[in-house]
């Protein structure tokens, strides 16, 4: 469903992504790991449509469409979802109004009538239970005054409401205690369908104890430097990122010495 081919991007003239290729098929769970500053969040934001980086080359195809040409709202209506690392607080906009508007925009896109008020509330109730989110949170403004854990649960709640085909979870585990982590991971697992895929971006392995990936990639300095099965995550947990860095630097050096 998602084919990233040699994607290069820069921010303020500084190259952040230096040629990323990634192929996600229906039903797969991919993990992208890597040290801070390697470009993980930039990749996630570019996929969701945040216009802050210049695309210098490469392509991204999503169900055969050029993803980079699509507005963020189109991507969402076509089933792409980004779980934010830092969810935004929006005072004055209620969760209910936010979700109702989003759901109905999705339905309109699919040629469906807006949900009735009672069906909408029923759906909210159902999804709230799924992610064990405090009932009162949805009566408040979007993320306003939510704790770190509540914000992350709220991301998964929105994911549950929108039922994406491709969910990109950007460090959803950061700042979560073990109970919250379990709830978030359970939510993601319960929402997983045969035809839907997940990209989990994380710094640590512990989330992957709960959300088991099919493929693990290591992103370092704007490139995917290693791709393997789920055992790679355990290896990283054990040995840290230093050996990856060294390996990557060796490759870089040899490339500099003997440019092809």
């Amino acid at each position, binding site marked *: 469903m998602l084919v990233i081919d040699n994607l290069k991007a820069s921010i303020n003239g500084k190259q952040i992504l230096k040629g990323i290729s990634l192929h996600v098929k229906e039903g797969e769970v991919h993990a992208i790991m890597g040290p801070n500053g390697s470009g993980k969040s930039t990749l996630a934001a570019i996929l969701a449509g945040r216009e802050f980086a210049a695309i210098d080359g490469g392509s991204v195809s999503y169900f055969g469409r050029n993803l980079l040409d699509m507005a963020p709202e189109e991507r969402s209506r076509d089933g792409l*979802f980004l779980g934010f690392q830092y969810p935004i607080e929006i005072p004055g906009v209620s969760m209910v109004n936010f979700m109702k508007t989003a759901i109905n925009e999705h339905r309109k896109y699919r040629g469906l009538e807006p949900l009735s008020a009672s069906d909408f509330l029923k759906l909210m109730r159902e999804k709230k239970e799924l992610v064990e989110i405090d009932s009162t949170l949805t009566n408040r403004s979007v993320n306003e005054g939510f704790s770190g854990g509540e914000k992350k649960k709220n991301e998964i709640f929105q994911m549950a409401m929108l039922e994406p085909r491709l969910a990109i979870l950007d460090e959803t585990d950061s700042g979560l205690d073990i109970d919250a982590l379990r709830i978030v991971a359970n939510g993601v697992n319960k929402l997983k369908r045969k035809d839907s895929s997940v990209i989990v971006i994380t710094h640590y392995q512990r989330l992957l104890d709960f959300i088991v990936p099919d493929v693990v990639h290591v992103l370092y300095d704007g490139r995917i430097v290693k791709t393997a099965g789920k055992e790679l995550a355990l290896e990283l947990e054990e040995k840290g990122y230093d050996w990856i860095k060294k390996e990557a630097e060796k490759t870089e050096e040899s490339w500099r010495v003997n440019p092809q």
Partner: protein
Amino acid sequence: MESKPAVKDRYTDLYLNNIASIEKGSSPFMNSFRKEAVERFADMGIPGRTNEAYRYTNLDIWFRHEFNSYFMPGPGDFERAAKFSCEVEDLDVHNLVLLNGFYPSNNGKLRQPGSGITIGSLNEAARIMGSVTENHYGRYAASDTDGLIHLNTAMASDGVFIHVPRGMVPDKPIQIVNLVYSKEDIFNQHRNLIVVEDNAEATIIICDHTLSPSRFLTNAVTEVYVGRNARFSIIRVQNEHNNAAKLTHTFIHQERDSQATSINITLHGGLVRNSTYHYLGGEGASTNSAGLYLTDKTQHVDNYVNVDHAYPNCTSNQLFKGVLDDVATGAFNGRILVRKGAQGTRAYQSNNSILLTDDARMDTKPQLEIFADDVKCSHGATVGQLDENALFYLTSRGIARREARLMLMFGFAHEVIQEIPVEALRERMDTLVMQRLRGELSRCASCMVKCG
């Protein structure tokens, strides 16, 4: 000398040419203020740009225009006012209609809706309820710098009178619908007096509304007395057309332990200037002053707030927010005066504006004068654009950018609407503000009222 003599003289001439009929039509008590007032107006004139409090607002072009004025309601006014039926879903109010500043009612000039409360025409009240009006009229509206207040005192002969006796609470809010209707361009002035005695309560909704497309200039003064431990709210909703200028001066005098709230919501209007004066005249009083301005095209909205902390342990809060589109301009000037001896004062002020274009402009100026030492004061002002991160967050959930912008603007405005103490009115305002932001606010769906 703030304005060119010709403009000022036009209004002193208006006084001289009409004072006989004004005095004939109004009560001796109100008349007793006129001579001194016109002299003070002649001294001060129309406030110009050199007046600190009017630095960002050009009144001159409005006062230079040739307006007509009239000083007695005509027979047609009675019919028109009677025909104007107003209703808001789920909001039950005692309704008063002012037409061009007069109270032309066929059902008696004063009403007693129960609990000893009186509502109706100020002109009538000044004749027959002297004990109340003489204790309060002309006592709170004072200014050494703003000639418009004296111009109003010199010539206004009617407006709304509301009296809530000690300990009484009206069964529902009182709504004043201020209509201007004329085939000609008119200048009009009215004067309201609201007296809420000790331990009493009142919620007043004022609705400023234009009914015909002529050019209007309105200069209105409202005096409010809030007695000891009384609770008072005034919510003014302004929806006038781009050819109308509305100048309001509201003086709220509070006694000890009283609470007052003033909210000015400007949805539409060519030029709007709201001056709100809060006098905290007794220990333990608290006041909330809020405003929301939504402007576009060449509109100009200016909010001036003056909070006078004259006694210890009083609290004041100012919250003013606005969204400015196209080449609209806005101004906010919030003065906090903490007098010597007003220890334990807490005074806060915040003014936040969103500019939707590069050509929209907002001038904001805090003015703190503090003469006591045990005081907590804060002020803050922001002028900015919509938050791109928040826009992205909303669009990333499938919401179109245009809709996302509306949601953010609405959320921004809602913080002020939340201050409205009447739930049905809050909901109505939410709807109106959303319509306004969408550009769907028609002349007749406007205000709190649905035109009958």
